[in-house]
């Protein structure tokens, strides 16, 4: 039972990370109807920027929580900014010229961007994995059984709380502000939105920047949680986050978060109880099962085929 609760905590932490990445997929898919294949790699870039800034600030291994959190906020801000620039540039250079073109074209460029980013980071940062010691160490012991101790680290608390805060913030942004209205208008009918004076290009760019910034936070969390990154982490995290977006219902922000949590839990539990080698198979199979039996996702709207 204690083992189970421990896995639950781990799964929720991992799920928060996936959820944050999934938001980028879900928003972009919602607004321009494309799978931004390079999104996972923007997440990876965010993790690398976080790593660099963490080393610059030299805050690893501190036990002063206030100092640690303060430094982390700064790190997060910097990597959100840089990842945002990446997101903006990718949209501007690789996707915008192909908007309204042949539908496979942007997907191919997205794959191209993904390959480029991976290898760009590999070429500039080296292929080796980058280990980093924990920034905030320590945690609580929640339950103590005879055989197994359930612990939640400060890091996990931080990740879950931060995710929750960001989620609420962005849900507010999308549902209440003019940016959110513009996004929803573009989602419904881009041409009409343009005619009504909405700056479609800016709206789409902003969507990419927001998605990339959230992915950067996820990258930071991934770095903190696993303590090790490499140039390839974006690929499988990207697919899982996309799975999360689909599972939650594409276009729905709470759905993306919920999907992320479910995928995180599945992965962790599968690794804990069955086989860690096949944990990715479990997550990918989940994607297939969801798409076949519940293509509209948990919180998505069903699609009626128009004849």
């Amino acid at each position, binding site marked *: 039972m204690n083992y189970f609760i421990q896995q639950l905590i781990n799964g929720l932490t991992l799920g928060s990370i996936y959820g944050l990445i999934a938001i980028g997929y879900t928003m972009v898919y919602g607004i321009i*109807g*494309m*799978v931004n294949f390079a999104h996972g790699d923007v997440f990876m*870039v965010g993790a*690398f*920027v976080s*790593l*660099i800034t963490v*080393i610059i600030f030299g805050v*690893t*291994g501190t036990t002063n929580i206030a100092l640690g959190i303060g430094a982390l906020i700064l790190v997060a801000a910097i990597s959100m*900014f*840089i990842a945002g*620039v990446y997101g903006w*540039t990718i949209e501007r*250079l*690789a996707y915008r*010229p*192909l908007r309204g*073109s*042949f*539908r*496979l*074209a942007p997907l*191919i*460029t997205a*794959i*191209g*961007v*993904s*390959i*480029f*980013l*991976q*290898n*760009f980071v*590999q070429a*500039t*940062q*080296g*292929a*080796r994995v*980058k*280990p*980093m*010691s924990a920034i905030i160490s320590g945690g609580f012991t929640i339950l103590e059984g005879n055989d197994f101790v359930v612990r939640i680290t400060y890091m996990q608390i931080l990740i879950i709380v931060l995710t929750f805060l960001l989620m609420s913030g962005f849900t507010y942004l999308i549902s209440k502000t003019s940016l959110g209205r513009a996004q929803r208008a573009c989602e419904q009918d881009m041409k009409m939105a343009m005619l009504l004076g909405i700056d479609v290009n800016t709206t789409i760019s902003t969507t990419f920047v927001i998605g990339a910034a959230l992915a950067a936070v996820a990258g930071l969390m991934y770095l903190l949680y696993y303590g090790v990154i490499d140039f390839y982490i974006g690929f*499988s995290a990207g*697919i899982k986050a996309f*799975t999360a977006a*689909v599972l939650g219902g594409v276009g729905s922000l709470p759905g993306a978060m919920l999907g992320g949590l479910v995928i995180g839990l599945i992965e962790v539990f599968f690794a804990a109880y069955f086989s860690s*080698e096949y944990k*990715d*198979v479990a997550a*990918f*199979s989940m*994607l*297939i099962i969801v*798409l*076949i039996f519940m*293509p509209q996702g948990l919180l998505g709207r069903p699609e009626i085929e128009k004849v």
Partner: protein
Amino acid sequence: MSLHDQTSSSFLPMIKRSVIATIIAFFLFLPTLGIKTSASGGVDGLFLTYRWLLLAIGCGLIFVGRIVYELFWAPKDGVQKPAKAQFGLVKALGSAKVAKTIGPLLLVFAVAFPFLPFSDRYILDLGILIITYVMLGWGLQIVVGLAGLLDLGYVAFYAVGAYSYALLSIHFGFGFWMCLPLAGLLAATWGIILGFPVLRLRGDYLAIVTLAFGEIIRIILLNWRGFTGGSNGLSSIPRPSFFGLPFNQDPGGFAATFGLEYSSMQRIVFLYFLILALAVFTFFVTARLRRLPIGRAWEALREDEIACRSLGINTVNTKLSAFAIGAMFGGFAGSFFAAKQAFVSPESFNFMESATILAIVVLGGMSSQLGVVFSAIAMVGGVELLRQLQFLKVIFGNDFDPSQLRLLLFGLAMVLMMLWRPRGLVSTRMPTVFLKDKKTVSAAMISQGRG
């Protein structure tokens, strides 16, 4: 307005835009080119190396590049230039007559290729590689180009073919010609098994699901050690022989039988002709299929699935047939791959392979078989050229490995080529049946399915 006026009036804004681009580039390059994380072996294990010179070079290139772009390519005065005349060759590929001439010429060239003076072992290996990709491209073209089903996991069928050959020949001692149809059949079966549940999905979803399938198969190959050898793969796969004559120095070998002097090139030439024959077979079968009711139904499916259903076409079966036949050719090619390498491991079947094959098809043009040939040459051959760029070591230092740049430039090329020709080299399509005369259908008319 004279050219001079135009230049001077737009000079300052141009500089301004270039500066902005450079600032953006600065932020992009700062954490990549500018600062490198290196392992040191200390407590934290990492320290930073600052490479300001590299960063400055990167930003400088962007600044100059942007100015050059504005001067030579960018739309002037906000007016998009009318689409430039296509390159002669590219345009010509679309016309029926030219295609009819180039095709046989290419085949003659391909047959003569091993005997040309410059064809050493390296060139021939490259030729084999390119033809393998052409064959894979033609196989995937059925799925993506004709039926309009976006398959990002095509490499899975390539893997099934390769492992089928490896396992059948190792465990049962089956020869190549026995394994080949079996491998194709197994790959097609897998195509149906994987395709059946997911073919109802919309384009992008289908793409991701097929990608997931590809990864699942790779992970299984990687971890099912008892069966597939895990990450070590399967080695000492029997090599194909020339009608029972092995390529070795034995008296019963190929060279001795034909009274030739033994040379390791003989096997390479044989493999070359083997893949050429397989590719030509693929070409004729796929070209024929396209003109049959099944092929027309595939294209109709790409154009409008609902209309297909209203005409009594069983869309599920039609999609499955495209998936299975595409997979079958992937299986053939995979079985050739295993025979050529005498070694298979999961590493050969990663997502990059699927992406490469898909890029070849999309860049080649969705329904042009000739386009696939040229895009395979450009993609595989061009990337291979990069391996030769050893002079870059002079610039980047000795621990720089140009083959790392290979994939980087491959990704970049994918983006640039799509921006240049979103519909591929040959974007027109040839009607499958005609009354009086065969006119090519222009790209603008062709629909790409429901997205």
